[in-house]
């Protein structure tokens, strides 16, 4: 018969077990597969859960090592960092390969953003199990559980990044086809030569305009990778009305250079403009597209 009392006597073992459990819960919580269907189910999930176990194990084993004054053992955390950098390049490679077969590609900035998130979340798992194990060993089982819950909440807060709604006002624009030129409101999008395609655009295209909230957001909107991410997410949800060999129906995002507004033209299957506007607002703001020109240490001229 297994003796539970034994576990309570062996603080270290208990700490490691509770740490791993909380690390896993944190990983599972951060591994939500939404409309983007990434990571893919079930094997993508299995890969990341397994890596989550390793991360959780590393985080919680560090505590007994520290308490036993086995300081060299802590250096294996460096090994963990190496391991998770590999996760990042694994995700980057996979997504880059997949991207070439997408009708509306994600773009390298979005891919880099996703890969970065995968690496970062493994560190959050280490963080969760490290603190859970620490509190179990230092205080008691219950304090450890409490610490675990708090760290999961902190991880959840760190997990959610900003979205487009933080940097821009989004509203529906009117698609105008004037002779062969296509505009969204007054932003020039492209020239479409064929009457067939012009008619398709009149029927199926939706136009969206993004107005940047300040100078910093204008920099994010002008980032080409951020624009590709918006187009990719929009066409995932609304369905791109195109096929290979139809270059004229490609989704477009063009900037009004004068005032920084971004016009989006998308030929879609589901012409639900309210859904589209909502969708654009929820597109993640890519970390690498963020610039802070207003923070630059330069003063304006007289």
């Amino acid at each position, binding site marked *: 018969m297994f003796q539970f009392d034994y576990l309570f006597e062996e603080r270290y073992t208990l700490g490691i077990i509770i740490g791993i459990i909380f690390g896993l819960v944190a990983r599972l919580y951060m591994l939500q597969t939404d409309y983007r269907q990434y990571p893919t189910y079930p094997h993508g999930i299995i890969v990341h859960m397994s890596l989550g176990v390793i991360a959780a194990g590393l985080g919680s084993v560090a505590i007994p090592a520290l308490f036993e004054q086995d300081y060299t053992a802590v250096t294996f955390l460096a090994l963990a960092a190496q391991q998770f950098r590999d996760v990042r390049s694994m995700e980057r490679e996979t997504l880059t390969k997949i991207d070439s077969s997408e009708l509306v590609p994600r773009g390298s900035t979005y891919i880099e953003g996703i890969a970065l998130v995968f690496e970062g979340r493994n560190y959050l798992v280490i963080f969760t199990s490290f603190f859970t194990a620490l509190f179990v060993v230092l205080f008691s089982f219950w304090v450890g559980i409490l610490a675990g819950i708090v760290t999961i909440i902190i991880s959840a807060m760190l997990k959610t990044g900003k979205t487009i709604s933080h940097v821009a006002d989004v509203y529906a624009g009117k698609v105008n086809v004037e*002779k*062969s030129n296509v505009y969204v409101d007054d932003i020039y999008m492209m*020239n*479409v*030569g*064929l*009457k*067939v*395609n012009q008619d398709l655009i009149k029927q199926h295209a939706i136009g969206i305009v993004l107005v940047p909230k300040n100078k910093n957001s204008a920099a994010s909107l002008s980032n080409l990778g951020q624009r590709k991410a918006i187009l990719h997410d929009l066409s995932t949800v609304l369905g791109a009305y195109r096929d*290979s*060999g139809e*270059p*004229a129906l*490609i989704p477009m995002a063009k900037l009004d250079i004068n005032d920084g507004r971004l016009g989006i033209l998308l030929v879609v299957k589901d012409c639900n403009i309210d859904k589209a506007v909502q969708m654009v607002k929820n597109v993640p703001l890519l970390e690498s597209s963020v610039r802070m020109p207003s923070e630059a240490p330069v003063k304006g001229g007289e």
Partner: protein
Amino acid sequence: MKRIMAVVTQNKSVVNGKYIFYTNSEEELQQISFTLEKILDATAHQISDDTIMLVDHG
């Protein structure tokens, strides 16, 4: 890299370039451009009322 793949025109004075398709009517202009767009996987752009250019935006 953008490349001009073909030019379809009703204007006989357009002579410069490799692949020029002369047409006699607006319908024919549209029809030939449509076919070429599918074959060449290039976008048709109208540069004037009687001329359409097919560009590969690669």
